[in-house]
């Protein structure tokens, strides 16, 4: 069965490209959200296996969204992504309850799978 994914990102162009890329790599994209609050809701409602989560959202940061998702079962695996890069993003992502960070420049289904538990 395909790994299900929820994409949370405020840029629709990115969501559509990421969706197509992940689907071509065998993932099933079950939902999209454009901000943190609806991302947290969708994570609970859709119970995906993975949430691909942008770091810079219009309302709250991806780290905060990851914490909120981790606090509410079924708490799917969260992978944080961004066009920005910083050495401490991966550690901060893990502290917030996510599996890790992958930059958008390196994003692929394989990169996500590597981070999954």
């Amino acid at each position: 069965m395909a790994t299900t994914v929820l994409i949370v990102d405020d840029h629709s162009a990115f969501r559509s490209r990421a969706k197509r890329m992940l689907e071509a790599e065998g993932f099933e994209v079950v939902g999209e959200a454009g901000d943190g609050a609806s991302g947290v809701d969708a994570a609970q409602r859709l119970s995906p296996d993975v949430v691909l989560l942008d770091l810079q959202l219009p309302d709250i940061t991806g780290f905060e969204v990851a914490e909120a998702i981790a606090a509410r079962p079924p708490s799917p695996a969260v992978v944080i992504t961004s066009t920005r890069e910083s050495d401490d993003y991966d550690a901060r992502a893990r502290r917030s309850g996510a599996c890790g960070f992958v930059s958008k420049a390196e994003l692929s289904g394989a990169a996500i799978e590597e981070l999954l538990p």
Partner: protein
Amino acid sequence: MTIVDTDLPERYRALLLAALDCVVTMDHRGSVVEWNPAAERTFGWSAAEAAGREMAELIVPPSLRERHRAGLARYLAGGEPVVLDRRVEITAMRRDGTEFPCELTITRSTQPGAPLFVGYLRDITERHTAEAELHASRARIVTAADDARRRLERDLHDGAQQHLVGLAMTLRLARRKLFDDPAFVAELLDEAIGDLSTATGELRELARGLHPAVLTEGGLQPALTSLAKRAGVPVAILAAPDERLEPTVEITAYFVVAEALTNVARYAEASSAEVRVQRVGGVLHVEVRDDGRGGAELGAGSGLRGLLDRVSAIGGTLFVESPEGVGTLLRAELPCGS
């Protein structure tokens, strides 16, 4: 009437009478002996009223009076002078009780007998206000530059960078599907070309916002024409200099017009606008007039405030005339050499 000793040489009298600074003399008891016209104007006490009164009561704020008296007593008792013969800044008080910053020098006159102290005082309220405004303006300029950099980072992040990231994903996918599904790959490549073109367009817009290349290359005339074309309302350029001016003057004039036209499109509800930029002698006059609803104020929006700082930074002035219902005239005068 002014108290200036009639025995003094006439030239000294004239000096005291004409001085723009307050010149006051106090005897060893702390009482006023001389009080020139500038002191009358500054402190609000006439010379006749001041004569013989304790200086401290007239010009020293209550909270500082005891210190003043103690200082005088200490000096008269043989203590080292603290404020004599050097410039100090103090707080002084007017007749109505208002306090103001004042610079002061006190010297002791050398005639025999009991000492007399001559004080020169200057109200430096305006200088302090100007300094405070200068500091505030500098701080705003720094903040505006920081804001601009933040905006630029965000624009790059939200715009071109997203398209380029999407483009990279599309190309990676195309490479993977190259042999399996050539028709799909052709579709992906078309999309990639579209993404690239969008990203290029956004970068071009961003670059123009940072510094318009048309201004650098052709000066104000083509740059204003280009601004007018992109404005949200019809804009007539009634005058534009065909000569090249100092780059700082050109870019400031350009941003005055750009900001004005942005405001016209956003707030003025105008049907048209006119731009007139003319050099008269050593001043470049920049005017943008619209027929909108008026009511604009210089201090109201951060845009106009920022523009004021920019104009002031090169020694220019900015005015807004914006009667309700009549329209707005934004006018800048920029020094541009002779």
